[in-house]
């Protein structure tokens, strides 16, 4: 919860040695929302206004503005008698303590005091603004202040205490802006000042402050500052990121250059590779080893060719021999066939003896016993002997038969050898072989020719040039490989650096989305601030208009009775409400009453008091605050009728507001009679008592000494219903 409350009431006041009050006096004020009025009354000069001054001093640490004060003649806020009679090395203090309640109970305790001790006797008089006047010399003064705040959930031991003046003022200013002190510490004797003094910016600010505009102002300013800070952060990030971005740009350019060089290198390497391959192919064909290989292969082929040639020749020879061998046989074949045919015929006719020689038959017959080749024993005179003897007679000479047999055998061989089919087949085979030889020879010959050509084409000078070119290319290739590696490393390192720088850049500027978001946030904050500014301006006008309306309403209500008085015989000129139109609140919150012609109406003291109360009631309403109100001399210098009007209307005017009236005895208890009718006008006290509005009455009392200011006032509670 905020320390600022909508309802605040003073529960208890303690004064010690404050001006007219010697020693410690204390009193309670009403906390009852149905009986809100506490009356403190006494004769003039006993210290009613001092109570108002004391509370003001307690809150703000200074005296209320008083015109024409001469510090040299004014008595200070410390009771004069106490100071004058203070013994050497004695000490005492002056303080004011107020205890404040909100709707839930005790909330604030504010105590302000001055401790003092006498160090030496002195006849000097010292003017001290902080002490509000002139004080004796030889006395040391030590001011102090305490601001106690009790959180609603806290206990009595949980008071939060501030003792530094600056902090205390800060806290009090939040609750009771000093500019608005006139609206809760209301001095009716200074009514002229209240209305005639120019309502300056100070009061305007105070009204706006208590109306709750500071929260709107703070939100507006904080939004504007937030927008600026975000922009500043973005700008700082941009500034921080510029060197990084520049560095990145350079690296990106370098990477791009290296990539171009790498591409060119790769292309050149491809060219070299291609060139090398051509040269290498050439050299492969032309190098010594290859030549040797060709030579060897050529030799082999030549040998093969020679072998084939030999085989071919042999084949040719074989065919030739074959043809030579068989040509004559073929030529004599028919004769031989005829001869053999004749021999066959003769044989069939049995004209050619068996091919058994006479010697063979004789050998059989000469055996003992003669035995046939089949084992049969051939006996003399046997049929077998007879057959053999017969044969012996027929057989020719064995030589002849041998020649015949040989001749026939030759004939048979010739006939067999000159079989045309066989000869044709054999010749075909020979011819086939000859074809194979020729084909093989032809193939080998082609190989031989190719190899021979290669061999012949071999040019050692060109090979040397090519080899030199190859070495140059290889050298260039090595350089390019080195360059390529360098470029790749540069690109790799550059990209690594870029990643690192990118992270730095991201950290510096945020990612692009984040950057956009920050811009959005700044823009939104600025626009919200502008909207609140517009809202504020309209609200200020609205507050002023509402204050005018409410003041007018309250004022009309308060002065309406006047018409009644008019009806009963008052001069028509005094019939205020007859031509009162409205109250106008100027932009600086100066308040004026206007008639129906929009002309400023002059007000009597009573009317001014009514207007002031109306204005205060309106301000309180729009400010949404219901703080205590302490009014000094509200009944002073106004007619009895007006006093009664105020007394009758005050409770309904400020419902629930704690009201403390500091009044003179005569104004409070005095009666009067109407001038014309003589009708009794009741006292303010009777009116308030009749309305049951008064919670408590206090009476100020003091012994007055001739020619001296009162310095021993005390306060006495009066039992309700009794007269003092």
């Amino acid at each position, binding site marked *: *919860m*905020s*320390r*600022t409350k*909508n309802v605040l009431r003073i529960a208890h006041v303690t004064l010690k040695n404050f001006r007219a009050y010697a020693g410690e006096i204390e009193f309670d004020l009403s906390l009852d929302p149905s009986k809100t009025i506490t009356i403190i009354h006494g004769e003039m000069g006993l210290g009613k206004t001092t109570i108002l001054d004391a509370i003001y001093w307690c809150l703000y640490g200074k005296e209320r503005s008083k015109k024409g004060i001469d510090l040299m003649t004014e008595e200070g806020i410390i009771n004069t008698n106490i100071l004058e009679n203070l013994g050497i090395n004695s000490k005492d203090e002056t303080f004011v303590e107020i205890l404040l309640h909100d709707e839930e109970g005790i909330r604030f305790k504010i105590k302000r005091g001055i401790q003092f001790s006498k160090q030496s006797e002195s006849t000097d008089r010292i003017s001290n603004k902080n002490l509000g006047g002139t004080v004796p010399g030889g006395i040391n003064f030590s001011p102090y202040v305490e601001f106690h705040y009790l959180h609603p959930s806290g206990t009595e031991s949980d008071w939060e205490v501030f003792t530094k003046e600056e902090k205390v003022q800060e806290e009090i200013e*939040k609750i009771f802006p000093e500019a608005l002190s006139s609206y809760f510490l209301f001095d009716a004797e200074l009514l002229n000042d209240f209305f005639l003094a120019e309502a300056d910016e100070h009061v305007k600010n105070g009204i706006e402050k208590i*109306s*709750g*505009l*500071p*929260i*709107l102002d*703070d*939100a507006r300013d*904080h*939004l504007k*500052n*937030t927008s600026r*800070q*975000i922009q500043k952060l973005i700008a700082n990030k941009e500034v921080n990121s510029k060197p990084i971005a520049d560095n990145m740009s350079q690296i990106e350019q370098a990477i791009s250059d290296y990539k171009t060089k790498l591409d060119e290198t790769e292309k050149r390497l491809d060219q070299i590779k291609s060139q090398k391959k051509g040269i290498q192919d050439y050299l492969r064909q032309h190098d010594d080893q290859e030549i040797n290989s060709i030579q060897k292969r050529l030799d082999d082929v030549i040998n093969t060719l020679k072998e084939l040639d030999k085989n071919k020749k042999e084949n040719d020879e074989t065919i030739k021999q074959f043809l030579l061998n068989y040509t004559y046989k073929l030529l004599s074949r028919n004769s031989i066939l005829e001869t053999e045919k004749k021999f066959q015929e003769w044989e069939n006719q049995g004209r050619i003896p068996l091919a058994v020689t006479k010697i063979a038959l004789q050998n059989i017959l000469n055996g003992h016993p003669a035995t046939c080749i089949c084992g049969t024993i051939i006996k003399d005179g046997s049929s077998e002997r007879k057959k053999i003897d017969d044969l012996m007679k027929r057989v020719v000479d064995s030589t002849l038969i041998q020649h015949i047999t040989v001749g026939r055998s030759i004939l048979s061989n010739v006939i067999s050898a000159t079989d045309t089919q066989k000869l044709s087949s054999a010749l075909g085979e020979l011819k086939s072989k000859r074809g194979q030889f020729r084909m093989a020879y032809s193939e080998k010959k082609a190989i031989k020719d190719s190899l021979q050509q290669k061999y012949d084409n071999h040019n050692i000078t060109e090979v040397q040039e090519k080899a030199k070119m190859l070495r140059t290319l290889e050298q260039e290739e090595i350089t390019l490989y080195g360059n390529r590696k360098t470029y790749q490393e540069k690109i790799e390192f550059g990209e690594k650096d870029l990643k690192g720088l990118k992270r730095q850049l991201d950290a510096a500027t945020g990612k692009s989305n984040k950057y956009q*978001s*920050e811009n*959005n*946030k700044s*823009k*939104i*904050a*600025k*626009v*919200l601030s*502008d*909207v*609140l500014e517009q*809202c504020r301006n*309209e*609200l200020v006008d*609205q*507050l002023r208009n*509402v204050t005018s309306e409410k003041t007018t309403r309250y004022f009309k209500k308060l002065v309406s009775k006047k018409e009644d008085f008019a009806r009963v015989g008052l001069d028509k000129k005094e019939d205020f409400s007859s031509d009162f139109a409205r109250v106008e609140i100027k932009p600086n919150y100066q308040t004026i009453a206007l008639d129906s012609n929009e002309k400023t109406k002059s007000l009597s003291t009573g009317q001014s008091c009514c207007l002031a109360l109306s204005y205060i009631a309106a301000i309180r309403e*729009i*400010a*949404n605050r219901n703080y205590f109100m302490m009014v000094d001399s509200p009944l002073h210098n106004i007619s009895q009728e007006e006093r009664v009007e105020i007394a009758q209307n005050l409770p309904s005017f400020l419902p629930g507001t704690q009201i403390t009236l500091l009044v003179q005895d005569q104004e409070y208890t005095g009666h009067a009679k109407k001038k014309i009718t003589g009708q009794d006008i009741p006292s303010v006290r009777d009116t308030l008592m009749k309305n049951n509005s008064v919670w408590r009455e206090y009476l100020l009392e003091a012994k007055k000494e001739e020619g001296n200011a009162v310095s021993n006032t005390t306060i006495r509670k009066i039992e309700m219903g009794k007269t003092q």
Partner: protein
Amino acid sequence: MPINPLIIEKIEKLNVPDKIKNLLKRMLETEEQLEIFGTKKDYFINYDNILDKFANDKEIIQFSENYE
């Protein structure tokens, strides 16, 4: 300081999208909290956090861009 109902009433009557009204009320509530806890100086982090949530809200961005 508690928010004066007049201020809330005024914001409600503004001719702006509801989202903007809610955002304004949220800012005022934040101010109230900052005051309660005495941490006004920390306003930036609080405002920044709230704005973070609306940084990509199309309706609010559009309103901001069109607002003069």
